[in-house]
């Protein structure tokens, strides 16, 4: 069974700080996605990474896919209160399926 482990599980920081969230697996993924989920809502896609070593930037968010495609990271620069939420990595367990395996989640709280 493929698992996606995220760390840390919880993160509480002040506005302006930087942070990194990690997503690790013992299995290779063809692609990984990062979602953010706010209370009472469904997850919303932030980015998809598909190539080993790929780096994508979305404003203050930087996403990296590991060279071996077994891990990914999300770095937020100068966090804002609007970044508060549950961050989830997810990927398809096989090439022939559209279903997603989700990570264990990282709950981020940014205080003013």
């Amino acid at each position, binding site marked *: 069974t493929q698992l996606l482990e995220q760390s840390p599980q919880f993160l509480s920081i002040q506005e302006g700080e930087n942070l990194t969230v990690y997503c690790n697996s013992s299995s290779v993924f063809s692609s990984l996605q990062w979602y953010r989920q706010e209370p009472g809502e*469904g997850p919303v896609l932030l980015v998809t990474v598909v190539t080993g070593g790929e780096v994508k930037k979305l404003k203050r968010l930087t996403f990296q896919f590991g060279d071996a495609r077994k891990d990914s990271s999300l770095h937020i620069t100068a966090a804002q209160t609007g970044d508060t939420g549950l961050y989830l990595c997810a990927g398809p367990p096989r090439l022939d399926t559209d279903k*997603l395996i989700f990570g264990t*989640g990282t709950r981020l709280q940014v205080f003013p």
Partner: protein
Amino acid sequence: GAGVSQSPRYKVAKRGQDVALRCDPISGHVSLFWYQQALGQGPEFLTYFQNEAQLDKSGLPSDRFFAERPEGSVSTLKIQRTQQEDSAVYLCASSLPSGGIDEQFFGPGTRLTVL
């Protein structure tokens, strides 16, 4: 609105009752997914459809769980004889697909509480 909608948003059931959760996907989306999310955890896959065909139901926890999408649009997830461990948020998502790596669009979920 043009997003995925789910109803009801909240459901309280007594143990042993049957419940039905509805999902209206984005119009034209071919694929529809159901996930179960425990408090503070990531969603776990239950089942998915491509049009009306149920392609994978490997995540359904037991034979008390049943999903259908008879006309390839609206889907219903039914749970029979609910138990306390069924308490969770049930998320529905839809996607085109595009032939590449698809974005799944999620509804707000139905929070089920079994007493």
